[in-house]
């Protein structure tokens, strides 16, 4: 369970308390968010949340999406793809409305775009040279913002980043970091390591190095030779003869991935094993095996914190979208569900 799960769980009051834990300032950001929420809740008489504003997904927009899909793939969407497309449309529409409620359309870029599109449709609505603000207001009154892709994209992106930013700006509590680390320790685990020696058969000069290795193994076993005696029978190669504790990645870098994968399955006391590598073949002798281990949190705290914040930002965006869905009366196109 992570923080977002904790936030999702519990009753509304408890959830608000959890949210408050998660949404303390940075001052500037929270001021903006708070102002937006205040405007939504109070200046509009609480209508934004209380009366569930109606959000209608236009049939033509969904049809356009399906048409594009057909043009791209030459087939209709599957049930899952259908649901995905609908989800995308609903999420975008909710974020658009949410951005409007927060007043994000009042910023300069959205205003200038609104003024621009107002000029397209109305030569001089005020009888004088209108200011950009007047033009933007006219565009809003005409509802031009609803259909303009540029305005929509600006507002939807802004809303999405605003929501994620709430989390990314936080410093999670040590307890949360510990919880996350406990649940995701595998992502930070130090890999298993192995210590070995090897008797090489030089593959650069012996194309039959596999057969030579098997013959050498048979001889060593027959004569009951120890490691030192076996090493005296090795070919010269660039491969290190003795390796200290190394993980699979390091072994793969030196000898090749097949060698590393095989060697990591071997254990001390098993005698020699023939293993192919980049250099040819080897009789491998295992001295020591050390199982994978979880490092102390302090050694990886920064990485854990970063991963936690990214996950929480994603979770928080999903959660907010789900909550926002509950705050709108969503009307789907006829025949779509």
């Amino acid at each position, binding site marked *: 369970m992570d923080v977002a799960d904790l936030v999702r769980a519990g009753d509304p009051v408890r959830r608000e308390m959890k949210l408050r834990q998660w949404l303390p300032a*940075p001052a500037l*950001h929270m001021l903006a968010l708070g102002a937006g929420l205040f405007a939504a809740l109070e200046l509009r008489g609480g209508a934004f949340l209380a009366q569930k504003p109606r959000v209608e997904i236009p049939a033509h927009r969904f049809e356009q999406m399906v*048409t*594009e*899909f*057909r*043009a*791209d*793939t*030459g087939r209709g969407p599957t049930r899952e793809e259908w649901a*995905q497309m609908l989800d995308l449309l609903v999420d975008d529409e909710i974020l658009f409305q949410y951005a409007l409620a927060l007043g994000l359309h009042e*910023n*300069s*870029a*959205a205003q200038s775009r609104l003024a621009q599109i107002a000029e397209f449709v109305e030569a001089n609505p005020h009888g004088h040279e209108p200011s950009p603000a007047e033009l933007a207001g006219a565009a809003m009154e005409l509802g031009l913002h609803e259909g303009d*892709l*540029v305005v929509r*994209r*600006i507002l939807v992106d802004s809303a999405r*980043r*605003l929501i*994620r*930013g709430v989390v990314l*700006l936080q410093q999670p509590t040590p307890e949360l970091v510990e919880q996350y680390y406990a649940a995701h320790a595998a*992502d930070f685990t*130090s*890999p298993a*390591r192995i*210590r070995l*020696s090897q008797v090489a058969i030089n*593959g*650069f*000069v012996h*194309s039959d190095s596999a057969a030579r290795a098997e013959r050498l193994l048979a001889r060593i076993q027959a004569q009951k030779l120890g490691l*030192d005696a076996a*090493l*005296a029978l090795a070919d*010269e*190669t*660039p491969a*290190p*003869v*003795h*390796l*200290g504790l*190394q*993980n699979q*990645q*390091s072994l793969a*870098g*030196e000898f*090749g*991935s097949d060698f590393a994968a095989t060697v990591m399955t071997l254990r001390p006391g098993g005698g020699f094993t023939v293993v192919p590598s*980049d*250099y040819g073949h080897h009789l491998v002798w295992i*001295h*020591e095996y050390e199982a994978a281990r979880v*490092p102390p949190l302090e050694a990886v705290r920064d990485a854990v914190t*970063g991963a936690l914040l*990214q996950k929480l930002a994603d979770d928080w965006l999903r959660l907010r979208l789900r909550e926002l869905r509950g705050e709108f009366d969503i009307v789907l196109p006829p025949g779509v569900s």
Partner: protein
Amino acid sequence: MSSTRRAWGFVTRLATLGALACATMSDADPAKPAPGVARKPPYELTENRPRCNHYNPQRQAFFGTTHLHTGLSFDASIRFVDYANGNNPRGAYQFAKQKAPINIPEPSGLQPKPRGSCQDPATPSLDGPSRTPCVDEPLDWGAVTDHSEHFGVMGFCKNLGGKYLSESLSMECRMLNGFFYEPLKTLNPGFGKTMASNAFTQLTLTNLGAISQNTNLPVCNNHPELCAKAEMEVWSEVQAAAEEAYDRSEECSFTSFVAYENASTPLLNNWHRNVIFRNDRVVKTPVNALDMAVVVNKDPLKDPVDTLLAVVPDEPRVWPVPPGTKVNHPLPQPFWNKLEEDCTKGKNVTPGLATRCDFITIPHNSNLGGGVIADGKTIFPPMFLDPYNTADAKRHLEMEPLVEIYQDKGASECRYDPRYLAGTNTIDEFCAFEILDSKSLGSASGVGSGGGGAAAPPDTWADRAYVRNVWKDGIQYAAKNTFDGINPFKMGVVSASDSHTGVMGWHPETDQWPGHLGIDDAFPMADSSSIQNSTGGPSVVWAEENTRDSIFEALKRKETYGTSGPRMKVRFFGGWNYPADACSKDHVAIGYQGGVPMGGDLPTRASGAGAPTFITSAIWDGKIGTKLEQIQIIKGWVDGKGNSHERVYTVVGDPGSPLNPQAAIDPSTCKAKPDLGTERLCTVWKDPDFDPNEHAFYYVRVLEQPVCRYSTLWCRNWIRVDPLDTDTCNSQLAALQQGNAAERARASHGAKCCSNQTTEPFVQPVIQERAWTSPIWYEPVTRSAAK
């Protein structure tokens, strides 16, 4: 031989002998402690950190990248590669470690449905590979090199820290954030791509392409202090991501480098250079294309950008370019000077754990930066400029030890065009490999919406568009004593991807390649330009361990090579007296003890010594499983009359068939016939044509057996046409064009699938993947002594 090199050689031999002694030592538990455990590295340590468990004085091949972009680059952002959706430096490093997939936009510009981990099934895309890929094998090291010129603007546009909401909605940011979003199919099909290309040109010409008075974008010039702050936000994030990705434990699982790219693009010629820092002590402010201005633009709000001519002022910042010189191009010298001042001399360095700042710069895509030639005259110079004087020649030599020989936007080794049966100052037919039809970035692969340029004759390309020719010019300067015997172009090589999708270290010849430019090449076979994109390749260093100091030293001494994708292991040593049977022994120890590795200068030739000998070996990429065909040694030299020459020697393996690799393919599997090739090659070679009075360089090219290019596999799987048979392919494509909506869509996505070596665009349905090593140089004794 310098005293440093002599000392280094001594230490290396000691270390190697120590390891050998340890290797033959007989004891009950010899692997404890490990060989080389003394671990006194033969190079400067700028970091206080444990040595790696895998430390090896004979060095290992570490596969990485020196060049990769994320959604923090302006030209990725305009293609809907989304910083906020995880396509950022952190995401790229996670991808390289195989810890997570990365999100690449769908062709429509929509973000893909994310998948949690590489173990989750890939999300299907629309008639193409997944837009949430994972790397096939983790990388050892890497550097994210986002374009630094727009760091301030990117800080604004991505509203970093939530501080730039107003600026994030500026005109520039609307461009960078893809305000031109249009559904894929409208009355203006391809409108989004066209607008992305237009945005690229607008943004590039505004500041990266100017010559004498470079300036930032208006949103930054209008708010310079805020822009500087935003620039720091981005630069800090790049540094923080690198720090998080760096494994400082003795496991040494991954090494990251703080880095960025200088994207100087004068008149759309590619003069780009990556800047790689040695450790966490880096410049406080990136030095970039703006600093290449001939004249500093002190008031960009008042003075327009002058893109025509400039006169070099009498200022230290442009040293050693002579004052009064008239130029029609920016200058790399002030860029190097400022980096040296700020970093090496420590005048503007971040705090950090390391002892000091150090850097290298790596130019790339000389194939798109060869300049402009008309009627045999140079109208615009190549990125590898003629040095102005001896001091300048030294500057080139010191500042740029490496060059990128291969990446997504084609090969820069050399050019042979089968359509003309001719090359650019070469007759080497193996140079017909991943050559572009474009001469500049303006029309290069994926940049233009149609693009691709035209297949101009090879002799219309500038010689210095190709690295082999640059190397030849370098030894010519030395032979003619132009700059007191200095060779300004003594560069080693790396490969890279230059992918703008955060895909760090994935270079597959498979049908899963998702393109390298977001929405621009989401259907890579649709355009002449994008089908010429390759999948890039890794940079490889021979280093003692996977740490910043060790790898950086390898980069500086040029013990590096690049490949076109496979992770081959290639060794190359040069000396005067290697035994003929070195391959049956530890040829690496012998190589180090008796000479120099790739990137080095042959030791001074003793009086009466014969020709130089070289040891070279190659090990296949067993994971991909394509066997090796041959090792070539390519020699360039300057004769007594001052003319340069080149020759290709197949030193071991099968000489192959350069213009007909398809003959070696089993069309049903699209792989080389199984009885061909070998897993390992090794030989000792003596130059049969050696003249001790001639300057020369030698480098190795390893060729694999042929395989189908990724485009062939892509077209077969996703479009259902077969590029291996052109007539059939054209018939299949024509049938699709007359078919139902699905088939017409496929025909559109695969419009260029039936291209081949004879068409425009030039595309090889079958390629020979390869590796290129840094050269080993030979200078006659007299010249060395004179120096």
